[in-house]
């Protein structure tokens, strides 16, 4: 009986070898879960960038983003503005004071834009491949 007891924890519960085995299994499982989460975290999530329209300027005027990211423009001026790609590939439309509109960029490359109402206002979005 005393021989048999050495295999237990002394409290009449789980055998010690089995407890070590269980701990090992749990550690492996935890490691697997952690590695899975690390893998997910390393996949870059799309980012939303902001460009302020302030005193008839796009701020920042030049912005570099990654493919799949979005840019939102917020107009802080009284005068309405737009952010319009040079060839009108995309256009925020009219933005009144404090209005926000976003555009998602899925194609890499440099895209210049301007305000249709005040063409001297210019900006550029550089979209880098993922």
């Amino acid at each position, binding site marked *: 009986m005393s021989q048999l007891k050495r295999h237990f924890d002394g409290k009449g519960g789980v055998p010690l070898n089995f407890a070590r085995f269980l701990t090992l299994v749990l550690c492996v499982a935890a490691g697997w879960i952690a590695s899975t989460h690390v893998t997910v975290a390393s996949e870059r999530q799309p980012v939303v960038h902001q460009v302020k329209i302030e005193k008839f300027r796009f701020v920042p005027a030049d912005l570099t983003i990654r493919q799949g990211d979005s840019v939102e423009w917020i107009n802080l001026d009284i005068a*309405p503005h737009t952010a319009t790609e040079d060839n009108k590939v995309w256009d925020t439309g009219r933005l009144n004071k404090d209005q926000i509109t976003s555009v998602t960029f899925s194609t890499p490359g440099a895209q210049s834009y301007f305000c249709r109402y005040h063409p001297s206002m210019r900006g550029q979005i550089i979209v880098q491949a993922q």
Partner: protein
Amino acid sequence: MKTKTFLAVAVLAGAITALPSSAQDKMNDLEIAHTAYTAGNIDIRYAHLALAISENAEVRAFAQTMIRDHEAVNEQAVALITRLKVTPQDNGLSQTLVEGAAAKRAELMSLSGKRFDCAYATNELGYHQVVNQTVEKNFIPSVTVPPLKDLLVDALATFKIHEGHAESMVQNLQCRS
């Protein structure tokens, strides 16, 4: 044409400085609000005239911008006076501006083609120069209510862009040659 530009500025400047300096010094916030709103409306009416007469793409685009921007500024002004529960006060300067604008519109309506375009563009340049100077040097320092001061500062930024735009338009139309 330089002389014409100078005359246009002088006439507008005359309208604004026609009042005794003491009268200008004593303009209160409500009078300043009224005059600023009136000045915006005058430019909107000039712009509608330009859209009715001009066939020049640049002049028409400028006129549309004047309507869009000045309406936006005036909407903010209306929102502010509604929030403050006050009523702008008509005054001598507002009346002088309105009278001067009526005379200028009559003059513009008698023109067509490039003569109209140049007269409109030159008037826009002179008008914005004088209004901007008045807003910057007289109105903003005099106003006592912070939200009205902020509105005038923001509006001035818009009007200064208009002034630069008008200057380019005058140059592009080769009005001074």
